[in-house]
């Protein structure tokens, strides 16, 4: 049987991906340019017995999804820049409480209200540094409608596998554009569910490191009683100020991601084998970059593209290797140099890194990148 195809908007594909992953709870607050995610979820979730709630504000929405997740439902919220800022405290809560949730954040111009309908890629640092304290961060940056679907599924998988909040952050262009999408059949994409406890209820501890860095998570109402807090906690979930324990727990939370970088980090290499100029780009900007690479190749310039698909954790070792084999790196991005900072850090001076920055609400077009390729080749 032919697979189901549709001509879908990025945000709609994200909602469909969430449903495919088994999302059963959505809580959100209306914000441009992410509202279509909420609209689709409000229509589709109840059809599968799931629940949708529009909360009183962004913070309430973040709180509700953590509550929903702890009660056993795979949970999603969707937002954009200002909403992401508001959610940050509770993103930290989800990190420390180790509650799997997915945050679908469409990047629009900022700071503050900025350009609600204009594209941007300026929330990537927020995704890692937005909430206070040391914490793990996973952030996916899809570049097509099909990829939004698939990466939303992966966002849920990573959240469940590592018991941590995961952000998927399409820029406004990718989120609002429409493309043909081929829906994967059920079972075609891997769907991961959190590990449930195997011990009897009276022996259950929600942060029991006996089971490794990602302890099994019981659901409220499933026969397991336990305590969850935003305070630094011991393995039984109760607050502690014991120095050694706090240190160990903090390190474990971050290690969940740091020790599994190869499992989490994804990227795409295009025409890099013999490239002398490498473009490092993500989201819609990577599509301009690919166009520019093709044009450069036609003009006899050995250009290639490294497309970042997972922004956090950052593909450190890949960028480091890239820097040692090309003459120059170009980093086009719809912000004033956030990815560039990371690429320079990884390049360690082995190749010069030239940024192309745009924050005027317009996409970086292929011509701008091509000009830079010609300039630095």
């Amino acid at each position, binding site marked *: 049987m032919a697979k189901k195809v549709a001509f879908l908007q990025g945000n709609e594909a994200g909602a469909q991906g969430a449903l495919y992953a088994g999302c059963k709870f959505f809580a959100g607050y209306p914000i441009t340019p992410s509202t279509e995610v909420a609209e689709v979820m409000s229509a589709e979730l109840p059809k599968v017995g799931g629940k949708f709630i529009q909360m009183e504000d962004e913070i309430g*929405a973040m*709180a509700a999804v*953590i*509550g929903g997740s*702890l009660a056993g*439902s795979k949970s999603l919220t969707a937002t954009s820049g200002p909403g992401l800022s508001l959610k940050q405290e509770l993103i930290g*809560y989800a990190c420390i409480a180790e509650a799997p949730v997915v945050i679908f954040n469409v990047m629009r111009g900022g700071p503050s209200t900025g350009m609600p309908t204009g594209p941007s890629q300026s929330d990537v640092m927020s995704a890692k540094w937005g909430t206070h304290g040391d914490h793990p961060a996973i952030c996916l940056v899809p570049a097509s409608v099909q990829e939004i679907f698939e990466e939303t599924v992966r966002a849920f998988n990573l959240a469940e596998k590592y018991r941590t909040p995961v952000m998927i952050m399409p820029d406004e262009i990718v989120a609002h554009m429409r493309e043909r999408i081929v829906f994967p059949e059920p079972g075609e994409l891997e769907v991961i569910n959190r590990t449930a406890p195997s011990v009897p209820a009276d022996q259950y501890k929600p942060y029991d490191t006996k089971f490794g860095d990602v302890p099994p998570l019981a659901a409220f109402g*499933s026969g397991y009683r*336990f305590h969850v807090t935003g305070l630094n906690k011991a393995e039984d979930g*109760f607050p502690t100020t014991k120095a050694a324990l706090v240190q160990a727990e903090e390190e474990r939370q971050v290690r969940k991601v740091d020790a599994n970088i190869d499992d989490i980090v994804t990227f795409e290499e295009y025409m890099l084998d013999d490239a002398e100029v490498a473009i490092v780009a993500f989201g819609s900007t990577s599509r301009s970059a690919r166009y520019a690479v093709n044009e450069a190749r036609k003009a006899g310039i050995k250009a290639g593209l490294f497309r970042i698909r997972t922004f956090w954790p950052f593909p450190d070792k890949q960028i480091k290797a890239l820097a040692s084999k090309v003459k120059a790196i170009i980093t086009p991005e719809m912000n004033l140099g956030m990815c560039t900072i990371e690429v320079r850090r990884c390049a360690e001076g082995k190749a010069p890194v030239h940024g192309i920055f745009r924050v005027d609400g317009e996409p970086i077009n292929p011509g701008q990148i091509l000009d830079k390729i010609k300039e630095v080749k």
Partner: protein
Amino acid sequence: MAFDYEKYIRPGKLPHIWCPGCGHGIIMKGLIRAIDSLGLEKNNTAIVSGIGCASRLPGYLDFCTLHTAHGRAAAFATGVKMAKPEMNVIVVGGDGDGTAIGGNHFIHACRRNIDMTYIIMNNNIYGMTGGQFSPCTPTGAKASTTPYGNPDPAFDVAKLAIGAGATFVARGTAYHATQIDKLIAEAVQHKGFSVVEILDDCPTTYGRRNKFKSVIEMMNRLKDIAVPVKAAEKMTPEQLQGKILTGVLYKEEKPEYTTEYAKVIERAKGGK
């Protein structure tokens, strides 16, 4: 035989953090008696709180307990209740947590009439942070941030809840200990969003700044100002001056949120 509180208290989690003379412990015992009288199943009951002295309560009790972030308890609890509507959900917290930083979540939980009980322990102050004034600090009172007396008017929590759409609102005091469990039990049994405000005292950060000589004096104040709603019906406005009504202040039956959402699911599945 004496009531066995230990049945509901997590082993090894006491002593609690509350100061001598604080009423939070009295309220916790009232909550335990209420739960016991209703026979709520521990595994099927979630107790959710925000931040503050009162919000430490869930950690002591042997249920599914969720100590959230400042002000956010009602929103977290809403998520729990939506995911598992069959669970009993009880929120506990203080006046600052619930009506200032959490005020928006509080009024919207009232408006939705989602089936849970919110116990608000009103001691008129931010105790944990050292006695700053809250939205429930009386005008003129001294707090660590109102050294010249509080210029702010105070919330009437019960009126706020009724105005926002809560369908069961009751008030008690930490002095009237035996009434607490009855009010909470009735609130939990009510289908919809129920609020139980319990007037409480903070001798450490409120009492000593406001010329209360002792905990007993503070407790006596609660005794003196409380007037049961029935008794108030026979009193003149002059007699009610400075008094606070206690008991069930408001009750009505209205569609409950998770029940209404179950109908949404039916309609969606039926393609309507």
